[in-house]
């Protein structure tokens, strides 16, 4: 039987084993079924435990009735004690299984909750940089943190409803055995009561949906405020944002009140109907007692059962509400889980050789093996795009598709908005796939990157782009995230990136804590740690995008010298316009509109290419700086 936290190997196994089959994402209902199937044993057992926990309710009135008839009215102490003993037994079984039920419910709830979070993490691991292109961060996070909870709630209510159903049928059977009229009444009552309340459930559901969407809007506002708090506190705007939040909060309150009032109506109708049911049961019962068809004890049992009916009915209401909520959550989860990596692993992959020449057809760029090539472009985005191509990354040019403003839309309009979003997402996916499956246009040693396995590409070519950031953890974890460096190698990496001062700034040295995104370091320190990490990986081909944009010229010069030294004999590409790197370049390539327009040595280009000069020369054509600012 499963336990929590569950072992999940969906999407990404982390080992050489293939991941387990994907969840069923054909429809929200199919997804929920799939999820429940993953832990059916726990759910079945917990409904059994729940059934036993309900025993005092199911059998209590019957036992009491028998005790009244045989013991009290019949005057038999022995019978009385027997029935009291039976009651005690039932109560004890109920108590024990109450605890078992609770344990199992926690288990199934957490299996769903943790399992969903784990699946989200694995989905990110599987999709890598492709996922944020399609789904906004907030949505990915909310599947893990709030939708997962709805799935947990569903497992609980399912187990409880199943048990309540059996218990209800048992009660009906007991009553039926005593009087068929009353038995039929009990059997018919629940469906009738539910049916009578159903018309109220639909408007309630609609209002709850509005309430939920207002609340989620509220949550995303709060998240936005927190994320931008530095700016709000620094520049201002607290008033506006505080007010906007308050306005939204009030509108959420109104939605909540309106759905709450419907809820109250549903509850009241429930009370009314079960009360009427009780009265008819009792009235019929007393008539039967008077007619001698029923004993007094049996009547007493009926009274107990009349009160009991509230339980199952309330549970079934809850089931209806929680399953619609779970369906909404499932739809959101599917939007994440159904994404497929656009890549297709080639049938027979060609192994790559990182010591060979790498060529980009689109720009006409070539990096010769073992050399340091600097890519110069007046528009940084264009050299970054080249770096992405060399590393087989999809271009970062799409807008992820969010769950936007479906609020206020009802019925058909909401469905249309949803379909529209799905189409947009599908369009991005199709475009990604188109780009990812055809020949990539970058060849390493004559082999197109699409002919090799993607992890082989990642092993051979490491692209450290400007978005590369640090994760919370110790300095040692930051430099050596894989845990495969020796101390000497790590020190070497720090030295090459000229980041020894970071080590020095942390009192605990390697064990000094860095916060999320390296907060607690200066901007340049952060960048140098990132560089050290990339250098320590020791990839055959290393592509660095603006690796030193946040450091001073001296530091940059040191880094450029050390890096070119370290990487001697291995292919290195650096995208920058800084002369400090250019001095160390074996080859320089100039891009215009993303196409290679010139290449050669820095000094040559400087002398002969006016375009090149205009991009890289920093001396500001001032009068009096001759001698200082003249390029060498």
């Amino acid at each position: 039987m499963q336990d929590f936290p569950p072992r999940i190997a969906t999407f990404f196994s982390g080992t050489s084993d293939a991941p387990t089959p994907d969840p069923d994402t054909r429809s929200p209902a199919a997804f929920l079924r799939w999820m429940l199937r993953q832990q059916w044993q726990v759910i079945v057992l917990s409904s059994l435990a729940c059934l036993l926990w309900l025993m005092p309710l199911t059998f209590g009135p019957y036992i009491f009735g028998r005790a009244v008839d045989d013991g009290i009215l019949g005057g038999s102490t022995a019978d009385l004690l027997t029935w009291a003993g039976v009651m005690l037994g039932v109560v004890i079984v109920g108590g024990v299984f109450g605890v078992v039920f609770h344990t199992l419910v926690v288990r199934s709830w957490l299996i769903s909750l943790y399992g969903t979070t784990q699946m989200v993490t694995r989905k990110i691991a599987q999709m890598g940089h492709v996922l944020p292109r399609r789904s906004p961060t907030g949505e990915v996070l909310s599947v893990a943190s709030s939708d997962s909870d709805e799935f947990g709630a569903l497992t609980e209510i399912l187990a409880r409803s199943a048990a309540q159903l059996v218990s209800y049928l048992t009660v009906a059977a007991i009553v039926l055995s005593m009087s068929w009229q009353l038995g039929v009444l009990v059997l018919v009552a629940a469906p009738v009561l539910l049916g009578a309340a159903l018309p109220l459930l639909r408007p309630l559901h609609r209002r709850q949906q509005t309430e939920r969407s207002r609340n989620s809007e509220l949550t995303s506002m709060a998240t936005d405020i927190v994320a931008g708090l530095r700016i709000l506190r620094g520049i201002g705007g607290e008033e506006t944002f505080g007010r906007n939040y308050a306005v939204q909060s009030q509108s959420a309150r109104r939605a909540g009140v309106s759905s709450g009032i419907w809820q109250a109506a549903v509850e009241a109708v429930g009370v009314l109907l079960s009360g009427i049911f009780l009265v008819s049961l009792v009235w019929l019962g007393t008539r039967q007692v008077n007619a001698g068809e029923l004993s007094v004890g049996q009547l007493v049992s009926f009274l107990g059962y009349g009160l009991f009916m509230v339980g199952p009915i309330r549970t079934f209401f809850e089931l209806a509400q929680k399953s619609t909520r779970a369906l909404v959550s499932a739809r959101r989860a599917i939007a994440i889980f159904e994404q497929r990596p656009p890549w297709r692993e080639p049938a027979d992959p060609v192994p790559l050789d990182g010591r060979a020449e790498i060529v980009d057809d689109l720009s006409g760029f070539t990096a010769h093996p073992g050399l340091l090539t600097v890519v110069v472009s007046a528009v940084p985005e264009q050299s970054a795009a080249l770096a992405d191509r060399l590393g087989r990354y999809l271009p970062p040019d799409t807008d992820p598709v969010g769950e936007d403003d479906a609020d206020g839309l009802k019925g058909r309009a909401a469905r249309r908005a949803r379909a529209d979003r799905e189409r947009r997402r599908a369009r991005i996916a199709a475009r990604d796939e188109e780009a990812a499956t055809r020949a990539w246009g970058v060849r390493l040693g004559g082999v197109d990157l699409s002919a090799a396995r993607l992890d082989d590409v990642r092993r051979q070519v490491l692209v450290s782009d400007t978005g590369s950031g640090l994760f919370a953890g110790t300095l040692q974890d930051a430099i050596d995230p894989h845990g495969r460096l020796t101390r000497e190698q790590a020190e070497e990496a720090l030295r090459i990136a000229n980041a020894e001062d970071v080590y020095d700034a942390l009192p605990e040295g390697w064990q000094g804590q860095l916060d999320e995104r390296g907060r607690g370091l200066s901007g340049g320190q952060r960048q140098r740690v990132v560089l050290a990490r990339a250098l320590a990986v020791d990839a055959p081909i290393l592509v660095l995008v603006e690796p030193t944009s946040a450091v001073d010229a001296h530091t940059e010069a040191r880094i450029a010298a050390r890096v070119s030294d370290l990487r001697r004999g291995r292919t290195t590409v650096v995208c920058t316009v800084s002369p400090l790197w250019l001095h160390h370049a074996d080859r320089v390539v100039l891009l215009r509109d993303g196409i290679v327009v010139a290449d050669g040595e820095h000094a040559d280009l400087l002398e002969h290419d006016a375009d090149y000069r205009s991009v890289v020369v920093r001396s500001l054509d001032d009068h009096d700086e001759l001698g200082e600012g003249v390029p060498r």
Partner: protein
Amino acid sequence: MTDLLATSPDTWRDRTLDPPVIPPELHPPVDASPAERNRALWARHDLRRQRAEDVYDASRNPVRGWPVSGNRAVLAFFRDLLTSRKGMFAALVAFNALAAATGLVVPRLLGELVNTTVDGGGLPLDTLALAIVGVVLLQAAFTFIAQRTSTIFGQDLLSTAREYIVRTILRLPLGAVESASTGDLVTRVTRDVGTMSRSVQYGLPMAIISLLTVVLSIGAMLLNSVVLAVPALLTFATSAPAVRRYLRRAPKGYITEGATYSRINTTLTETVEGARTLEALGLSGERVRAGDDDIEVSAQAERYGMTLRNVLFTALNFAFQTPRVITLLVGAYAYTRGWVDLGQITAAVLYVEALGDPLDRLIGEVDRLQVGAASTSRLLGIAEVRPDREAGDRLPDGTDLVGDDLRFAYRKGHDVLHGVDLRLGVGERLAIVGPSGSGKSTLGRLLSGINRPRTGSASVGGVELVDLPLEVLRTEVALVTQEHHVFIGSVRDNIVLAREGSDDDAVREALRAVGSLLWVERLPQGLDTVIGSGRYSLTPAQAQQVALARLIIADPHTLVLDEATSLIDPRTARTLEGSMNNLLEGRTVVAIAHRLHTAHDADRIAVVIDGRIVELGSHHELVELDGEYAALWRAWTS
């Protein structure tokens, strides 16, 4: 030069010696006898309690991150909320009591009915049946009114509470905001507000209803028959010690759970945001493991809570279920003695039975309230962040910014600035340059009043920056750093933050100055295009332009730009700085930059090395001087 890595061998850790995420004692033993397993279970429970207490103690006064407030603060918070709604609260209690009371009349009438049936005495059957119908109608009506009141009350309480929290966040001290982690704060405003709202919205009214029902039921039981009620009530009372112990321990358990969910969320956020880095470095496996470790820790916290509840349930089950048997036995005995009639026994048993439901609910709600209280104390913890400044009443006289003997330490005993003196002329453009990590950004933060210097003073017009009310401070100095954020909202909303009333012309003017008007006008709805997370997304360079446009609208007399154009390509950046300078004629600008064209174009340059200003002068003077700056300039332009 000393070897900065001298201590490296001492601090490097051998990862094979890393302790497992959770100690092995927390795993249940395999093939042990039932007795041993039982002992191990309690040993684990004790260990988990210890862990929960450690987490709680640590979170009351955290080294890093946000604190958690104590129970007293939570109680006071809700007391305040309740006292300001006395009338509403009284109505809530009254209507719920009426609903519960009418509900309790039913068993009594049913007992009466049994009596009539058994001995034919008392009221006629049909009258009784009609009476029950009447009572049921009343009960339904009261239930509706009571629930309606509860909803209105609960929603009102909830919206007040969450608006209070957000207002608190919006008032967090500047220094704290700049240095603390956002992951935990985000978890608090999402998950914890969610939990709190569930407990305020359903938990509180439900707990009140259930409590009322229980109290009234007990009253009704006593009214029905004292003989039958007393033994049952005594058995109920046996659960008191277990309940007390639970109430003492649960809060720490739930706060610990909350902390583990914060951690899960923080890790996951990092994973999503760093997806590309993880892919590039082949770290996905490590990251998945890190997430699993967080969940492993969280599962231990959940197990602690589960065992706590199980112990409580065991006690409650005994206390509230055995009275069925006791009532039956006592009833039978009292009946033979003629102390009670059958109707009373029936009613008593129905009461005991009917008590089960509200009691179950009461326990469930108390539990939910505990969870809610834990979340609330995490939320109120935000309010406990001590303000880092006390606004004085002096207002600046003049606009000259002066730094005098500025020292600052992020960590005690490690000054990163060592006595910086700086006097800014009005309308001056000062560039700050220097090696990475030398304290430039720190100086920028002191000069914009974000942090209080450890010694010395940073003042404007003779008044300490950190003694100014924030609203005044902002009109004096503003800081823009490399860290940017685009709010969910229209382009216009994103720019007019500091001056809400700004008209579109001003916005366009600002956008033009930062070179963004063109792309903004090309957006689908121009200024009205909704941008931000999950909406139309901007490139980092565009986001930086938006940040600068905000600053232009804010229009303080002094601007501190800490690498504020570093994500924009050098050529554009220089043009942009030029056009901004034109627009900001007469404003003082402090620009921290590694791109020395900024320094070149500035009036004066301060060179900061190791927390000291070592050179100060214009480009020409410093080049002339042939010191640090000249060397830097030579290196930069080489």
